[in-house]
């Protein structure tokens, strides 16, 4: 099983999964993902021959990543614009 996040769904059909750390995106039919899976959600997936053969949502990882992202964006918002 590898940890991936659903970056986007192209044309309502093709899911683009990004692996944790470095690595190429995995494309799969959106039907191969669990019901209720939306972009920005983390999953644990099993990939064989370039195809996703099993997938389950990872809500804890999704929540942790969302909190980290929010904190970092808040830091940037406090930094604000460059001096003129």
């Amino acid at each position, binding site marked *: 099983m590898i940890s991936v996040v659903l970056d*986007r769904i192209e044309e309502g059909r093709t899911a683009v999964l990004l692996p944790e750390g470095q*690595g190429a995106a995995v494309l799969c039919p959106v039907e191969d993902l669990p019901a209720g899976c939306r972009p920005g959600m983390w999953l644990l997936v099993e990939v064989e021959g370039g195809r996703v053969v099993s997938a389950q949502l990872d809500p804890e990882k999704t929540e942790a990543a969302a909190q980290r992202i929010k904190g*970092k964006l808040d830091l940037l918002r406090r930094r604000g*614009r460059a001096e003129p």
Partner: protein
Amino acid sequence: MHRAWLKPTLVVLILILCVAGSVAARGNMAAHFFYVGQAEAVLLQGPDFAVLVDVGDTGRYDVVPLLQRAGVTRLDVVIVTHPHADHIGQLKDVLGAFDVREVWMSGFEHPTPVFEEALDAILASDAGYYEPRAGEAIPIGSLTLEILNPGQVTEDIHQSCLALRAVYGGFALVLTGDIEVPTEEEILKRGLNVRAQVLQLAHHGSETSNSAAFLDAVSPEVAIYSAAICSPFGHPHVQVVERVLQRGITLYGTDAYGTIVVETDGHRYWITTERAPELYGGVFGQIEVNRAPYEQLLKITGIGPKRAGEILRLRPFSGLDDLLRVPGIGPATLEAIKKQGIAFVGE
């Protein structure tokens, strides 16, 4: 893929791309629509400004070499229209290679490693940060960026996508990121001026976007989309191509033409392209090192993502032996390339 509709019904000048110094010295603006595969990266470069809109895809190393080749040394603003990987993928690399004054984003929170890596890179840099909103008009030197979207960030990443109208003198260019039809309708309802000589087709020329109403409101003479050769998502969609051509709009795509440069003096504009459509790959599976796009270069033995990026930066090459200028290519690799027999340097 055969695309008869891209056969030139107009005169296409095949020129080596203009370098920054010459554009700036002429007091012109050049909008470079880089070929970066199934992704976006557009450089707006003028006498007193350099703005990058979107930063290519993750897993590639092409945006920095392309910017260096265009003569970029610093960037006033890097705008990320939205945080999908094919629009924000190489922000870390760009921030590492250039002095960037500000980064603009929509503010949409997308919990992916690519976005988090980009945020970390901004935090580690000295760049300022801003989330512009529809209705603002922000001068960057002699360029004005009029923000068309978003009015506010919503739970929909495409509805929250940044879209803008770049104005240089009497010339205007509309950049759309991945906005979709409902967002196009919202933009039109705002009553902002969207008219432009050149329109970047939204979402890589997808049928999710580029409605007749939006095309008619912008009323462009030229439309440009960015998509990979043989796009995995079928971009551009034939319905959009037909909609554009039926309106007498001249269509360019980075898949067919490579990098496309629109240069303007603020009144007139002219277009140069990296290659004539469908001539990029040489013949019979051979690869012309001075013209081939990134993906084709990767088929040459010993050429990985980084060396392919270096080839983009350093070409033209006078012959295969000249590839020794590429960092990491030594006599042994050169010999293997010659033995493979698919790479060549044309006239």
